[in-house]
């Protein structure tokens, strides 16, 4: 077994795992009852699935320029995904679209009820 074959097998495993995570996100988006839990499912292909597929692509394209582009994409996704999720979660909570019967603990409710800085 040559190094090329081994790299191809590893790349195939990474690609299939990433695609499986994408499918899991699709199922989760369809089945979960709440927007916050749907956001939990939505992060699967955004971070781990994408990184697995980028790793598989890097194994198939062993070239410095291509690997630099792939690392750039992965790093950018890692930086921006939490920011976007934070913004969406904040908008969801402020719009009151959270199902309270599904929450275990709601620490923001005390801040909303009273306190001087709650009016923003």
């Amino acid at each position, binding site marked *: 077994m040559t190094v090329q074959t081994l790299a191809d097998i590893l790349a*195939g495993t990474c690609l299939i795992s990433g695609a499986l995570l994408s*499918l899991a996100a699709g199922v989760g*988006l369809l089945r979960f009852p709440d927007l916050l839990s749907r956001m939990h499912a939505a992060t699967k292909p955004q971070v781990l699935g994408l990184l697995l597929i980028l790793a598989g692509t890097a194994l198939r394209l062993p070239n410095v320029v291509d690997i630099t582009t792939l690392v750039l994409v992965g790093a950018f*996704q890692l930086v921006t995904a939490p920011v976007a999720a934070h913004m969406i979660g904040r908008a969801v909570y402020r719009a009151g679209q959270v199902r309270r019967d599904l929450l275990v603990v709601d620490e923001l409710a005390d801040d909303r009820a009273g306190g001087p800085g709650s009016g923003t």
Partner: protein
Amino acid sequence: MIVVGVIVSALLFAAVALVLVRIVRGPTTLDRIVAVDVLLAIVVCAIAAEAAYTRDATSLTLLVVLSILGFIGSVSVARFSPRSRR
């Protein structure tokens, strides 16, 4: 590698179909923007898998543009979504 290509494309196709169902059915705008974000991530996955399958690095620059686009889109929609009026 052909088997891997078929499996990966089938899985991504099923995922896109499920996400599209959520985009159509989603009761609120925020549901839809979460689903659109996932759709964009799956499209990025599909383009990267295509590049890996054909060993062709032409479409890799698209991935950078798509990730920037997804971030800007979801943040702006979340930023300007209407507040609650209660």
